[in-house]
Each structure stands twice: as structure tokens, then as C-alpha cells.
């Protein structure tokens, strides 16, 4: 049973941790809708500082939840996750990609409700194409090609690479892809949020 658990858990964990990461980004839109954002920005806080804090919150929360789950499964199900330093690096990179993905998704929405609907669709689609719901290998070739761009896929490859004690050189690509998705997504989201939501309207 443990072997099946070890195979099933990484993609499932990534998918559901994405939902955990929604909270901090929902706050941005919720504060805007509730008109509390202008109050927060009236304090000596710049829009970028406010946005950075929310993105850092998402990153920290996702890393912490994944770390707790990894420790719990190691303790309860005797899953061997591999070298702790490498596991930590992969978890941080995964959390970074979740932040980028969610940030980019939330920056497209105008309201919290819109964002929730949009992000659920995006997360489920990424989970499906990235091997979170069905084995990636069973997808037809054209869907596999699309799935290569899903952070879920790279997170699972990286985590399994650490589990199977793959050489460090093999982990560079998936971890690099996760960081790229995270950094590009976050940068785009920060710019979009700053322009559309946080920046004061011109009279």
C-alpha cells in the first residue's frame, strides 16, 4: 500500500496545496472590494510592499503546508522522501510556481468571485494535464505536450527525482522550470495588480 501511496501522493499534494495558496491572493481582491485596501495603503505602506507581503504569504504558506504533509507522510506511511535539503529546495520551488500560477490567474480577475471561478478551472486543468488526476503517461501525446507546461508535471518530476535519489544534474531542469514559472508568473501578476487594482484611479 505504501508504494501506491508514494506514487499517488506527490501530484495530489501539489494540486490541493494550490488551493491552500489561494487565500492570500484572495485577500488582495477582497480588500479592494471591501474598500479596506485604500485604508491599508493610507498607512506608510506602498502598493508593492502590500503585494509583496501577499505573495510572500502565499509562498510561505504553500511551503509550510507541503513540508508538514511530507513530514506527516514520512511518519505515518513511511514514505522515503530523500535528502532533506533537496526535498526542501523542491518544496520551495514548487511553492514558488504555485505563487506564480495563482498570482497570474488572480491578476486577470476583477472580483474575488471571478478569481475563484477562474482559478478553480485553471488549477483543475493544470492538475489534469500535469498528471495530478490521471497518470501522465496515459494521456494522449498532444495532451502530454501541453501538460509539459503545467507546473504540476515539473513538481512531480522533481519530487520523484529526489525520492529516487536521482543525480543533482537531473533535478536542475524541473526545479529551474518551477522557479521560472514562479518568477515569471509573479512578476507579471505584480505588474498587473499594481496597474489594475492597487494603483489609484486617475480623476
Amino acid at each position, binding site marked *: *500500500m505504501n508504494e501506491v*501511496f508514494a*506514487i*499517488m501522493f506527490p501530484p*495530489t499534494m501539489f494540486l490541493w496545496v494550490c488551493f*491552500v495558496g489561494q487565500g492570500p491572493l484572495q485577500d488582495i481582491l477582497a480588500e479592494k472590494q471591501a474598500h479596506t485596501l485604500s485604508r491599508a495603503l493610507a498607512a506608510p505602506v506602498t502598493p508593492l510592499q502590500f503585494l509583496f507581503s501577499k505573495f*510572500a504569504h502565499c509562498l510561505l504558506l504553500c511551503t509550510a503546508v507541503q513540508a508538514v504533509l511530507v513530514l506527516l507522510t514520512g511518519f505515518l506511511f513511511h514514505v522515503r522522501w530523500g535528502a532533506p535539503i533537496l526535498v526542501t529546495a523542491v518544496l520551495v520551488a514548487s511553492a514558488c510556481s504555485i505563487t506564480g500560477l495563482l498570482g497570474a490567474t488572480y491578476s486577470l480577475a476583477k472580483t474575488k468571485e471571478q478569481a475563484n471561478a477562474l482559478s478553480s478551472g485553471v488549477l483543475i486543468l493544470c492538475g489534469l494535464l500535469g498528471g495530478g488526476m490521471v497518470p501522465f503517461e496515459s494521456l494522449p501525446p498532444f495532451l502530454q505536450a501541453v501538460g509539459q507546461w503545467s507546473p504540476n508535471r515539473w513538481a512531480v518530476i522533481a519530487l520523484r527525482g529526489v525520492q529516487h*535519489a536521482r543525480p543533482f544534474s537531473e533535478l536542475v531542469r524541473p526545479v529551474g522550470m518551477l522557479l521560472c514559472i514562479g518568477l515569471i508568473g509573479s512578476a507579471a501578476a505584480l505588474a498587473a495588480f499594481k496597474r489594475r487594482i492597487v494603483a489609484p484611479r486617475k480623476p
Partner: protein
Amino acid sequence: MRTILILLLKDLRRDWKRPWSILIFAALPLLLSTLMAFIFGGSGGKTAAPTIHIALLDQDQDLLARAIRSMSSQGDAARQLQLHLVENEAEGLRMLEERRASAFVILPLHLTEDLLNGKTNTIGLYENPAEQVLPKVVRQGVTLLAAGLSGAADLLHEPLSEIRQLFKGSGFPAEGAVTAMASSSVEKLRGVRVYLFPPLIQFKTVKASDYRVSSTNAPEQAPKP
């Protein structure tokens, strides 16, 4: 930076006071993976393999066909393989149509004789189109069987012919004939001892968590993402 940290701590304190949504989302992968592991992994630590039902028409009724039939009642095969002997092709096909078998195998007429005479013969196979995996398992098995029979016929041609003659004879086999046949078989097998005893290539199952990279599973041979 300090401002960002203050804002972050404020948010984290709020999470600490109201952690329920986080806990629920965090518990879901544990719950779902555990359920999946119970469903697909069994509770006893071993995966429960399904029994494969095969309809078999033995037109050969000779030495090798009898040996193949008896294989299904030995070892692990006895638990995971269920042979249903049928009288004719129509009966075998009906079993497939009624989904009572995953595949229908026909051991053709003169299979043993042709193998021993070095003639090509064909094992018939019908796969149940309503099933996905088990017919493919049978196809792999039949392919292996065909390759194994060809190899065995090449290697043990003489002793097999003698055994066949002994079985065909009406009386009790002579002691000398049995001894000579055993001696001939041992002599043949001695030639391939280094490949078969123990087998040169062995199949070994390891836990996924115990899998380690070695010289025989080099990383560059692994499937690329």
C-alpha cells in the same frame, strides 16, 4: 522589508487564529491518497492480482499441449489463471461474447509434431474487445509461450521426441529407455547451464521507495519528461 515582514506576520497570525480552510485543503491529499492506496494497493501490503479466465481449445492433444494445460495448475498460475477447456471454436467464441473469458487460445492440430519436426505452426488467439488489460496480458503470455516452445523444441528436440514416443506407447516404459532419455536431457541442459541455472536474466520486484540508481539503470536511459 520591515513593512513587508510586519504585514506578513499579521496575515500569518490571522491564519493561526482561523486555520480551518488551510487544514481542510491540506488534509484532502492525505485522505484521497490513502483511499487510492487502499483501493489499488490492498490492505495486506500486496496488490491483489485479478484472475485471468482463458478459453482453451486443444486441437493438438499431444505432449506439449498437455504440458501447457498442466502449467495453469502449478504455482502462482493456479491462483491467477483459470483455463476453461472448450470442445470447439464456436464454444470459445461464445465465452468471449458472454464476457466469461478474457481471451480464447487455440492450440492447433499437430502443434507438438510440427515443433519437433521444425515446421512453423500458429497458436490462435482471440482477445476479448470488451476488456482492456487482461487480453493484453494473455497476448504477452502467448507470445512468450511461442518463443519458449520454439526454444525448447530446438534445444530438447531429441529427448522430447523420445518422451513423446514413450507416452504414445501402450506398455509400461522400459527402465533403460527412461534412463537413456534422462541422460540425454541432462546432457543437453548441461550445455546451457551457464544461462539457465541460475537464469542469466532475473526479474526482481523492489519497493518504489527502495529503488536506487545503479549501473544497470543509468539515468540517461530513463524516460525524459
